[in-house]
C-alpha cells in the first residue's frame, strides 16, 4: 500500500510541476497547427536569436571543456597551496545567482571600469555584446565539466599514466592515449550538461547582453521579450523549441552517463 501511495505522490508532484506546464506550452504552441509554429520560428528575429544562442553556447562550452579538463587534472593529479580554495571556487557559480554574475561582469568589463574602457579603446566591446555573453555563460556553466570529470579521474588513478610514461610516452601522449579515453564518458556527460546549461541560461546573459533585439538576443531572451509584447505564439513556439532541445540533450546524457547510475 505504502509503495502505491508513494508512487502516486511522486507522480502527482511531477505532473503538477513538470508535465502539466510543459504539456500546456506544447498544446498552446501547436493549438493552431504546425504552420504558425514554423512561421514564428522562422522570422528574422527568431532565427537571429537562435544563431546568437548557438554562437554563445559554442564558445562557452569550448572554453569550459578545455578549462574543465585542465582544472580537473590540476585538482586530482597535483598538490599545491590553495588547492582546496580552488576546489571551493569552482562551485561558486552554483551558489551565486546568475543575475549577480551578470552585474559583476558589468562592473569589471563595463565602460564604467578602467579595464572596460581599456578594452573599448582597443576596439573590443565586452558588455552588451557577444564576448560578455560568452563570459557570463562560461561562468554559470563552469562547475559542470569539472564536477563530472574529477571523480572519474580520481577513480582512474595515476598508475596507467605512470605506466605509459615508463613505456616512453610524453605527458601529452599519455594524456591523449590513456587519460582522455579513460575520462571520455564523464567528459561527454559534463559537456552535454554544459551545453544544456549554456542554451538555457537567462539571468546573467540578460544583464550583460542589454537585451538588444536582433543583436544580443538569445532564445531565452527572445521568449521573454515576445511574451512581454503579447506575441504568445512566438513565445510558446520558441519555448517549445528550447524544451525539445533540452529533451534531446537529456536523452544524450542518459546514453553517456556511466552505467548503473540512475
Amino acid at each position, binding site marked *: 500500500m505504502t509503495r502505491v501511495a508513494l508512487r502516486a505522490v511522486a507522480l502527482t508532484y511531477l505532473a503538477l510541476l513538470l508535465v502539466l506546464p510543459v504539456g500546456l506550452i506544447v498544446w498552446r504552441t501547436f493549438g493552431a497547427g504546425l504552420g504558425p509554429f514554423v512561421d514564428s520560428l522562422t522570422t528574422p528575429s527568431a532565427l537571429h536569436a537562435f544563431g546568437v544562442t548557438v554562437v554563445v553556447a559554442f564558445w562557452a562550452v569550448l572554453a569550459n571543456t578545455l578549462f574543465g579538463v585542465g582544472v580537473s587534472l590540476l585538482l586530482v593529479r597535483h598538490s599545491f597551496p590553495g588547492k582546496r580554495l580552488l576546489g571551493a571556487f569552482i562551485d561558486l557559480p552554483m551558489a551565486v545567482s546568475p543575475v549577480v554574475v551578470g552585474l559583476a561582469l558589468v562592473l569589471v568589463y563595463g565602460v564604467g571600469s578602467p579595464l572596460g574602457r581599456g578594452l573599448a579603446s582597443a576596439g573590443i566591446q565586452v558588455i552588451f555584446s557577444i564576448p560578455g555573453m560568452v563570459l557570463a555563460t562560461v561562468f554559470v556553466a563552469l562547475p559542470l565539466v569539472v564536477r563530472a570529470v574529477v571523480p572519474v579521474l580520481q577513480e582512474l588513478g595515476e598508475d596507467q599514466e605512470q605506466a605509459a*610514461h615508463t613505456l616512453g610516452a610524453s605527458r601529452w601522449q599519455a594524456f591523449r592515449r590513456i587519460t582522455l579515453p579513460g575520462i571520455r564518458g564523464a567528459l561527454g556527460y559534463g559537456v552535454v550538461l554544459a551545453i544544456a546549461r549554456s542554451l538555457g541560461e537567462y539571468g546573467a546573459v540578460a544583464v550583460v547582453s542589454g537585451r538588444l533585439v536582433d543583436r544580443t538576443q538569445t532564445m531565452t531572451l527572445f521568449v521573454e521579450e515576445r511574451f512581454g509584447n503579447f506575441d504568445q505564439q512566438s513565445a510558446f513556439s520558441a519555448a517549445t523549441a528550447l524544451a525539445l532541445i533540452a529533451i534531446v540533450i537529456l536523452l544524450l546524457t542518459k546514453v553517456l552517463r556511466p552505467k548503473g547510475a540512475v
Partner: protein
Amino acid sequence: MAIEVRGVNKSFGSTPVLSDVSVDVRSGALTALLGPSGGGKSTLLRVIAGLEQPDSGTVRISGVDATRLSPQRRNVGFVFQHYAAFKHLTVFRNVAFGLEIRKRPGAEIRRRVRELLELVHLEQFADRYPHQLSGGQRQRMALARALAVEPEVLLLDEPFGALDAQVRRELRTWLRRLHDEVHVTTVFVTHDQEEAIEVADDLVLLADGRVKQAGRPHVLYDDPADTFVMSFLGPVTRLDGQLVRPHDLELSVDPVPAGVPATVSRVVRLGFEVRVELVVDGQEAYAQVTRRTADRLGLDPGAPVYVRRSPEARGAAVAAG
C-alpha cells in the same frame, strides 16, 4: 653494475622514507627488495624508475647518471602491483603501446607482440580486453608490455601481491624461468621472505628506510647482520640469550656437552616435521625436528630433555638484543 643507487634520501613531508640508501644491482641478476611494509622498498623502486625524485643521492642505470632523467627517458620496464592495464585497449594494443610510441613499423610491432604474448602464454588472448582476463593473466600481460620496449632493467612492484596464494606460487616459479630465458636485469619488491629466497639471486633487505643487509639469500639466512635480519628471513627461537633457528636445535634424552636442561611442554606434528615446544630456564623456546627424531626420542609433554645448538648447524646464532 646495472643499477647503482648512492646515498639516496627521500621524505614525504616530514616523514623520512629512505635514509642514505645505497644499493648495487648486478647485471642480468634477479634481485629482490625485501622488507616489511612501510620499509621504503616500493619508494626505492619508484626512485629507480624515475616515478619519484630523491631529495638527495644519485641513481645510475647502466653507468649513466639517471637521477634527473624523466621515467620516459630511462628505458626501464615497470610492472605495477595492480597491473595498471590500459583498460580501453586490447591485450595486443597494451603490449604494443611502447612500440607504437616509438613509431616502429607495423609489421615489426605485430611480430614482436606475437613473440611476447607467446613468451607469457597469452597468444590466444590478443583480442581480449583486460577486464576479460584473470589477475594472473593481467600481470603477465603487464610483464609482456614492460618487456616489449627492451628495457635496460625490469622493475616489478609487488608483482604478485594482489594474487591468491596458489597463483602466486605458480607465477613466481614462472618468473624465475622467464628470467633464465630473457636475462634482463630484474628488481622486484616483495614483503614475502619465502618468495624472495626462492626466486632471487640477490636480496636487499630494507627496513625503516635503511638497507639492513644485502647479498646472496643463503648468506643473509645463515649469516645475518643482526637480530632483525635473522628474524625477518626465517623462524627463530631463543636459547641461552641467543637467537637461533629452531631447526638448528638438537634434542637428547641423556646429558650432552653444552646441553641445557629443558622440559617438553607440547609436541605439534606438522606432517613430516615436528615442532617441540620447550621450557628452558622458565623461558619458552621451540625446536624443529624430523618425525623420525621425535619418534626415536619418544617425546611427550612433561619429559625432561637436553637441548643445544647443533655443532653442525650452518647458521649463526645472534645475541638477542
